[in-house]
């Protein structure tokens, strides 16, 4: 489903994905530098592909999807929780597709907002994610947010004709520091 909840951070804001966002995604996802780190994109998506994706997400009860924008309302990507309710867990996906926004710590804030939501609003027990072992910037961001390295899946993804490893990370509700508590520090 498309989340109805708007999550406000200091530098980012998460809001529902709208149909009007899709052409911008198509534009960004045509860039190999952007899709380099995305496991599930083979060919750059067309507008029809993106429409189908958005349509599927809207009716998928096991997905919670947001658009990410800057505090001044500029769209920059998407983030998603893929739920397995019977196990009280979700998989986190995050894509900052506007590469002019990379390296500003915005991802860290997105991760914190979404994981807070997973534990406090959805009452989950675990949030996990997978990422390319070579994606040092993303891994740093996940570790800063509290994720722990749990496993390394060998030769798990084909990137530029080469099989690379996938890192699995997880964070549990017990060890999570909610946003407010951090701000008090």
């Amino acid at each position, binding site marked *: 489903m498309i989340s109805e909840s708007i999550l406000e951070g200091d530098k980012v804001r998460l809001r529902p994905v709208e149909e009007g966002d899709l052409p911008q995604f198509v534009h960004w996802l045509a860039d190999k530098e952007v899709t380099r780190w995305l*496991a599930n994109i*083979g060919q750059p998506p067309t507008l029809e592909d993106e429409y189908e994706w958005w349509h599927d997400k809207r009716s998928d009860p096991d997905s919670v999807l947001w658009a990410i924008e800057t505090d001044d309302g500029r769209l920059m990507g998407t983030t998603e929780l893929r739920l*397995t309710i*019977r*196990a*009280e*867990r979700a998989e986190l996906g995050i894509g900052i597709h506007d590469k002019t926004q990379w390296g500003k710590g915005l991802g860290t804030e997105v991760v914190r907002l979404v994981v807070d939501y997973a534990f406090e609003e959805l009452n989950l*027990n*675990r949030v*996990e994610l997978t990422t390319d072992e070579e994606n040092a910037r993303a891994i740093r961001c996940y570790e800063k947010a509290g994720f*722990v390295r*749990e*496993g*390394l*899946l*060998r*030769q*798990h*993804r*084909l990137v530029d004709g080469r*099989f690379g490893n996938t890192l*699995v990370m*997880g964070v*549990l509700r017990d060890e999570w520091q909610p946003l407010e508590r951090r701000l008090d520090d």
Partner: protein
Amino acid sequence: MSITIPALLGEKVRLRPVAEADVPRLVRWFNTPDIRHWLHASERPDATLETVTDRFLRNWDNTAGVLWIIETLEGTPIGNLRLLDMDPHHRRCELAISIGEVAYLGRGYGTDAIQQSLRFAFNELGLRRVDLFTDADNERGIRCYEKCGFVREGLLRERRLRYGKPIDMLVMGVLVEDWQARTRD
């Protein structure tokens, strides 16, 4: 592209496609407490003819998965084996197996079934890697997976619930070269 499911013959078992007549048997297996204990979906409500028909016959996506019934060479059905989330781009899939007849546990039937399915995945489907998730305390299962070439790759903390309590899971993987080295011996 849908996958044509062949029957596979091993030394102790035969794998064959599922038939409508298997549904009551699958329901009985999934609801047997000692079997259900280990199922990822153990927290679901009891299986019924309806839910099993839906999941394994009506809505089975045969472009992404293969489902076999495991039989002894005498023709007694004893369990099921699935290849899931087939990914032709990254050339991998996930394997899930459950022996449903308690009397046949721990006697090498599962090992033989896995070996036949790996041969099919690597040689016929052209995959390079097979993933597997299992409960961290499933010693019998883990021993069998290791015998088949699977390697422990990570410990996923509190990844699912059993009787409402979180338990750890192990992620394992076997690469085509691990498997070839083993079958050459």
